[in-house]
């Protein structure tokens, strides 16, 4: 999030209610416990190879209320969800879950990498996150494997009917 840090913060972009909004969401409850020790960033496998991904920084920006900077940032999507930060946080912040909550909010705004939309539309269509090639299905027979269980798009669609994120996906899939 280097680019965001270099840009001066204006008081007008601070949403002081943002931290309370996050704290009310499932997984974001312990956001305000963070005392910025940096265990999450120092143990993060992605931070080792990324110049921009710093979980501690994301948490701090969230506490400060820099809502748009956090939610519009591409960096947010680099988390590998390995949960190392969650397991090692001395304050039990559940860092990975807070980041997931933030990503969910970014996704609601339609700010989401293409790969997630593709997986979602594939699941709605077949049950599987990837389109399994015909060749693979035939090969199962050669390898002596039983036929793959089929998805039930109709039944699945009913259970997911009210999920908000789908508004960003269905247009593309159809």
């Amino acid at each position: 999030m280097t680019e965001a840090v270099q840009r001066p913060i204006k008081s007008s972009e601070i949403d002081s209610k943002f931290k309370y909004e996050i704290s009310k969401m499932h997984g974001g409850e312990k956001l305000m416990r963070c005392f910025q020790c940096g265990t999450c960033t120092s143990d993060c496998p992605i931070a080792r190879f990324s110049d921009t991904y710093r979980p501690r920084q994301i948490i701090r920006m969230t506490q400060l209320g820099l809502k748009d900077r956090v939610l519009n940032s591409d960096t947010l999507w680099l988390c590998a969800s390995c949960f190392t930060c969650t397991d090692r946080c001395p304050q039990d912040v559940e860092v990975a879950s807070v980041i997931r909550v933030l990503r969910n909010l970014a996704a609601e705004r339609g700010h989401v990498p293409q790969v997630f939309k593709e997986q979602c539309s594939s699941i709605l269509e077949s049950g599987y996150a990837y389109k399994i090639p015909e060749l693979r299905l035939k090969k199962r027979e050669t390898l002596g494997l039983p036929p793959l269980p089929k998805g039930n798009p109709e039944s699945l669609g009913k259970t997911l009917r009210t999920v908000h994120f789908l508004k960003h996906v269905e247009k593309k899939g159809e």
Partner: protein
Amino acid sequence: MAKSKYLMFLGCAIPYRVAAFEVSARKILGKLGVELVEMPEFNCCGLPLDPVSHEMMLILAARNLALAEQKGLNIITLCPGCAGTLKKVNKMLKEDKALRDEINCHLKEAGLEFKGTVDAKHLIQVLIEDVGLEKVKDSVVKPLTMLKVAEHNGCHILRPKELIGFDDPEDPKTLKTLIEATGATCLDYMDETECCGAPSVGVNDKIALQLARDKLNHIKTVDAQAMITICPFCHIMYDTNELRIEKMFNEAYGIPVLHYPQLLGLAMGMKPEELAFNELRVDVSKLLKQVEGGA
């Protein structure tokens, strides 16, 4: 509930491109007397969509658990991502009545209900807890004492610790124990519990491959003859992508990456062809010669 009969939950990655894992797992489970029943219908465990919609992940996972409950069978998975997700959601919904009611409202639309009556376990958890180490050891007819290998667990079978509750994420022992049951030596190496990088593929491939390369370097340093994985995604990172990593960083590894059931299968006396060794990308001929030669 019968401890030798499970509902097989394949997940998405295995049918998509990791057939060798499925072939070898079915073979060894058959030999150990574990009966597998196929899922009546399938949807993704939900894990890949957690970043975009936690609610959707919960519904997808709960739907699978509800289907398993209808069958009255516990779930076995080969993918730690699926195992972790189904286990996590199972625990969350069992313990949080408000959340359970909310998710059941969605499931009701399709005539399903989550009750919390089944378990979900990964292959290695079934082997260590239900089949038992002694039975695994007894199945070995050709101890692989000539092999020194390195293990890689992957994250989601262990983390987050509080919700998964299996083994110790900082010092996992189960896979090592199961590897040693085959007679092979399991080597210690730097950053053993580090993520393979797979979840970042598609968002930032370069970071993902750098992570995988880091681990291959550590494994090379301790002279492991092979790497043993239990996750389809980790396997793709190290086996399918090994050549790509070698080219990208101008390295030479040539480290074969086996699915754990392939290793156990060899120790059970099965032939490499039966265990789909020909599906692996990295050349395994030298390794198989060492196994054949016994030295």
